[in-house]
């Protein structure tokens, strides 16, 4: 009886202590993350005058988003984000797999190469963007090097050319984050039993065969993590564009992304006069929220199903 009373009094104390312990974190998190996010989703169904909610608008913000003059910006940005995602998948997560595999085949230098490759990832995208903007500028060191090697003549304008600018930003982003796939793949490869590779080698499989037929299927969880992270990062892309091309996504909106467009609508740099359109901004935010959550869920399920159990 006494033990019972003691456990139940302990339970009561724990319930009370738990509330006190959780409250500070919950209050900060709810006030500065959950509340504004919920209000933003809710607000996208209203007419706005400046920063004031006026009346219920149904889906009219959303329909305005897809037509003139917003439609061109929206589809442009959507396309740039999609291209960015596939560019990162190919250049960063594809080449990253090659690097991780090469490191895995060697017993020496793994930690050194991993540290070097990952270093840009701890830098602010602002620093990375500013650095590459200086290097790639007309008169910059890349122009000088290409001219010296005879690969290019005259002024280098890759960042000012609407055909090449987006590709350059994707390359800078891949340079920034290349260490991430290398670390995640290497960790994944180390979890695969060495016996599997031994057996494959006895059967006469070469390195390429082992990578694609054995390692890759077993790396599905790593690939899933990377795909999801790249998807989230790509569709939140803002810093590199802002620093290298300005908030308009210059030249002529060719590097505009969904978040830079959102920023212009919300904080006023859209159009020559810089008027904000909060209703439109919130509708874009809600749409982006749906893209991100549904996309993430679908990817997690997709890779979950393809995970090979041994």
């Amino acid at each position, binding site marked *: 009886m006494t033990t019972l009373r003691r456990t139940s009094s302990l339970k009561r104390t724990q319930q009370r*202590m738990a509330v006190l312990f959780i409250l500070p974190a919950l209050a900060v*998190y709810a006030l500065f993350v959950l*509340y504004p996010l919920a209000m933003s989703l809710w607000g996208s169904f209203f007419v706005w005058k400046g920063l004031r909610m006026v009346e219920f608008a149904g889906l009219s913000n959303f329909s305005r988003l897809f037509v003139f003059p917003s439609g061109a910006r929206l589809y442009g940005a959507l396309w740039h984000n999609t291209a960015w995602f596939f560019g990162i998948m190919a250049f960063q997560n594809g080449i990253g797999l090659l690097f991780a595999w090469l490191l895995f085949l060697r017993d020496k230098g793994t930690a050194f190469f991993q540290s070097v490759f990952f270093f840009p990832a701890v830098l602010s*995208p602002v620093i990375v963007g500013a650095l590459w903007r200086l290097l790639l500028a007309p008169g910059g060191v890349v122009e000088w090097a290409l001219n010296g090697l005879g690969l290019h003549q005259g002024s280098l304008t890759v960042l000012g050319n609407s055909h090449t600018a987006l590709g350059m930003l994707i390359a800078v982003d891949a340079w920034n984050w290349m260490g991430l796939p290398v670390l995640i793949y290497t960790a994944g490869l180390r979890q695969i039993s060495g016996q599997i590779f031994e057996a494959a080698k006895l059967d006469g499989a070469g390195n390429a065969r082992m990578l694609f037929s054995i390692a890759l299927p077993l790396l599905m969880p790593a690939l899933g993590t990377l795909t999801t*992270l790249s998807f989230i990062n790509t569709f939140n892309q803002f810093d590199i564009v802002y620093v290298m091309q300005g908030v308009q996504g210059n030249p002529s909106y060719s590097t505009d992304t969904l978040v830079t467009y959102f920023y212009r609508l919300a904080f006023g740099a859209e159009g020559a006069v810089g008027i904000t359109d909060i209703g439109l901004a919130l509708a874009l935010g809600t749409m982006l929220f749906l893209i991100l959550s549904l996309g993430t869920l679908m990817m997690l399920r997709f890779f979950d199903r393809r995970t090979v159990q041994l």
Partner: protein
Amino acid sequence: MSALAISGRPALSRQLARLPGWTVLAVWTAAVLLPLYILVVSCFKTTAEIYDNRLGLPRSWALDNFVNAWTRANLGHNFLNSLIVTGAAVVLTIVVSAMAAYPLSRYRLGWNAVMLGLFLSGIMLPIRLASVELFTLMRNLGLLDSLTGLILVYSAIRIPFAVFIFANFMRVLPSELDEAARMDGAGEVRILFQIILPMVKPAVSIVAIFTAIAVWNDFFFPLIFIFDDRYKTVPLAISVFVGQFRTDWGLVFASLAISMAPILIMYCLLARQIREGVGAGGGMK
């Protein structure tokens, strides 16, 4: 790893077969280090020298650019702001997240899973999309143009990841730890801070490292909340410099070098923990 070492062949041809691979790795190493090398040597050059002598070492190791960046461009002030915001956000995040994770991972409350799920959902939430409402909230609370505002927002954003890490580490500690302490009459606060927290030091360092990196590097929230030069953080100041001092390249390079110095130092000291933390969870950003 050594499982793959090809044992039969003589050493020389084995090394030759590996040459293409080493070359690929060396090329990317150069692609990472060369821009950083150019950044470092350009800090000590005048703009004219940067044009004349692209890759060579500077004529003299003059610190003029650093001095100018620190004082004339006022980066010193931004640096201090960034240090305050980063330090305070790291401490606040660790304290409140450890407090929340302790009962969620070690008490039987009946609602642990729901509450933990509520926190964890925040890891993936795209908080930038809430920035309009967040702006209104900050204005109403009088937190625009203040470091306190930034500290609170950053802590709020980093809490989900921190709770996740702390809960994972605390869950596996043996239950005898707190039971014995409770028998001895220790209060719950003491059990958390004097017994549990010292046992999960790796979690503390993971949370501290990744929170510090994320906060030090962030640019989006100062951009929308800070208008007064007195409260600008380093990344925001840098984004202004790049446009403003476009002709004074040495100064811009020096300010980039200054702003990455704390992260570089931390990276050199903690490279192994960072590599392992990322490899294990992919839990950055």
